[in-house]
C-alpha cells in the first residue's frame, strides 16, 4: 500500500465532461417537464371546477402563442422521455420464451407500437379522427 495515495475527487461539473453524461442529464431533466405537464392538468381541473368562464379563460391562455410554446417544449421533452424510457426497457425487463431470450428490438418495438396505438386511440376519442 502506498504511503501517500492521491485522491482525485469527481468535479461537480462531471456531467458536462462527456457526451454520454450530458445525454444522461437531458434524460433526467425530462422529469421536470413531466411534472410541469401534471401541473398544467391540475390547473386545468381547478379552472374547470370554477365554471365555464374560468375554464374557457384557461384554454385561451393555453392556446395563446406563449401557451403553445410551453406545450411544444413539454411535448419535445416528453418525447425524449418516452424514447429513452422505451429504449431501456429490454435491459430492465428481459423476456425469455422457453430457452430463448426475446431480442431487445422486439420489446422496444412492441412499446413503440403500443405508444402509437394509445396515442391514436386518445386522439380518436377526443374527436380528432
Amino acid at each position, binding site marked *: 500500500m502506498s504511503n501517500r495515495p492521491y485522491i482525485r475527487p469527481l468535479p461537480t461539473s462531471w456531467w458536462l465532461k462527456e457526451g454520454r453524461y450530458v445525454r444522461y442529464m437531458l434524460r*433526467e431533466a425530462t422529469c421536470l417537464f413531466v*411534472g410541469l405537464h401534471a401541473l398544467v392538468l391540475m390547473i386545468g*381541473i381547478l379552472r374547470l371546477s370554477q365554471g*365555464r368562464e374560468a375554464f374557457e379563460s384557461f384554454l385561451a391562455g393555453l*392556446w395563446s402563442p406563449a*401557451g403553445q410554446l410551453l406545450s*411544444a417544449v413539454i*411535448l419535445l421533452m416528453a418525447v425524449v422521455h418516452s424514447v429513452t424510457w422505451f429504449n431501456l426497457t429490454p435491459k430492465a425487463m428481459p423476456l425469455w420464451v422457453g430457452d430463448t431470450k426475446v431480442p431487445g428490438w422486439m420489446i422496444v418495438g412492441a412499446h413503440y407500437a403500443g405508444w402509437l396505438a394509445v*396515442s391514436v386511440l386518445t*386522439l380518436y376519442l377526443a374527436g380528432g379522427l
Partner: protein
Amino acid sequence: MARSNKPIVWGLFAAGGTASAFMVPVIMITVGLAVPFGWLSVEDLSYDRVHAIASHPLGRLISFGFITICLWHAAHRTRTTVHDIGIHNDSATMTICYGMAGLGTILTGIFLFLL
C-alpha cells in the same frame, strides 16, 4: 446496512415513468396544440364535454391516478438528479421533492372533488 425503503418511491417512479412515457405526448398534443393547429375543433374541448368526462367517477379516478403518478415520478427523479449535480443534503431534498408531490396529490384530489 439496513434494507432500504427506496422500493416505495422507486416503484412510484417506475409506474409514473411508464404511464407518462405512453401518455404525455398525446395529452400535450390534445390539450395544448390540437385546437390551435386545427386538428381538433373548439367544441371537442368545450366546457360541457370536458366537465362531463372529468367529473364522471371513472374520469375522476383516472385523472387522479395519472396526474399523481406523474408527480411522484418527477419528484423521485428530481431528488436523484439534485444529488447528481452536487447538492448532497438528501434529507432536505427528499422533504422538498416528496413534500411537493404530496401537496400536489392532495390538491389534485381537492380539485377533482370540486368538479
